[in-house]
């Protein structure tokens, strides 16, 4: 619901973006990146640092620590210089009224198999849903994005769902 008299934020052009799959990108999972990530969190379990310990615990190699997925593989021609993630192709269709602020509403990940160092994942993302609500911060546009990760065997190993709020 929007404020009385205001036109809906979501336009037909925006709705047309729902479900469109992005070009795929590659996420190499490697030991150095896993160790750096685990160290920065403060993980103490040797499985994140020592391949022999990881194998003894039943993993193929160092496993991805929780939250690792989404860590960008940097490339200067395609990555954002501050956040490291892929630069978008552009802002895309805009809401009917300008929204100035952005909040990260949170992330949820479902895992379907182990992801370990040596894996080469292929990811694609799409806009899954758009919703508008009015709350204490005014009219909000809530967008849900899904990213599907497949491993080198083509198996879906994880699906990440992110929620962004513009207001």
């Amino acid at each position, binding site marked *: 619901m929007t404020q009385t008299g205001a036109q809906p934020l979501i336009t037909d052009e925006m709705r047309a973006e729902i479900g469109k799959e992005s070009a795929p990108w590659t996420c190499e999972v490697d030991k150095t*990146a896993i160790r*750096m*990530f*685990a*160290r*920065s*969190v*403060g*993980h*103490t*379990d040797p*499985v994140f640092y020592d391949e022999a310990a990881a194998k003894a*615990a*039943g*993993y193929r190699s160092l496993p991805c*620590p*929780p*939250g*690792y997925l989404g*860590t*960008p593989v*940097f490339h200067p021609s395609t990555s954002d210089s*501050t*956040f*490291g*993630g892929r630069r978008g192709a552009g802002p895309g269709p805009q809401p009917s009224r300008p929204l100035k602020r952005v*909040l*990260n*509403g*949170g*992330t*949820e*990940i*479902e*895992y379907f198999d*182990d992801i370990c160092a040596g894996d080469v994942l292929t990811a694609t993302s799409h806009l899954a849903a758009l919703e508008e609500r009015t709350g204490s911060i005014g009219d909000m546009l809530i967008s849900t994005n899904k990213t599907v990760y497949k491993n080198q065997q083509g198996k879906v190993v994880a699906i990440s*769902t992110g*929620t962004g709020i513009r207001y």
Partner: protein
Amino acid sequence: MAANWDEIKEGTELPVLKKNCSTQQLVQWAAGSGDFYQIHYDKDFAIGTGLPGLIVHGALKNAFLGQLIHDWAGNTARLKSYGCSYRGMDYPNEDILCKGVVTRKYEEGGEKLADLEVWTENPKGQKTTPGTATVRFK
């Protein structure tokens, strides 16, 4: 010792994981995660954006809760799903208590599962990063 499916029950609390981020850790996280947004390590920049000072990355708190679950569940269990939302800011040099509790224990599709509620707590006792997870046990 990792949690054992036979011993856990609804209401079982995870051992509390206490974090307290130095600015050094925020810089390590910037490198480890690839997120170099200056509000997490450049105080003048952070204040210039209207923040009271440096703030802890939301995704780092997400990873802290991941460590909480990993350390409790061990390496024979697997994280089946996990998510959290960012409700409040946390600051360096302040305790961040990572806590969790089993909310449901059940078997489904031949899998032994436990649903968890997890969260980070600031020194005022506020839950700044509430989340939920499902763990699959062996």
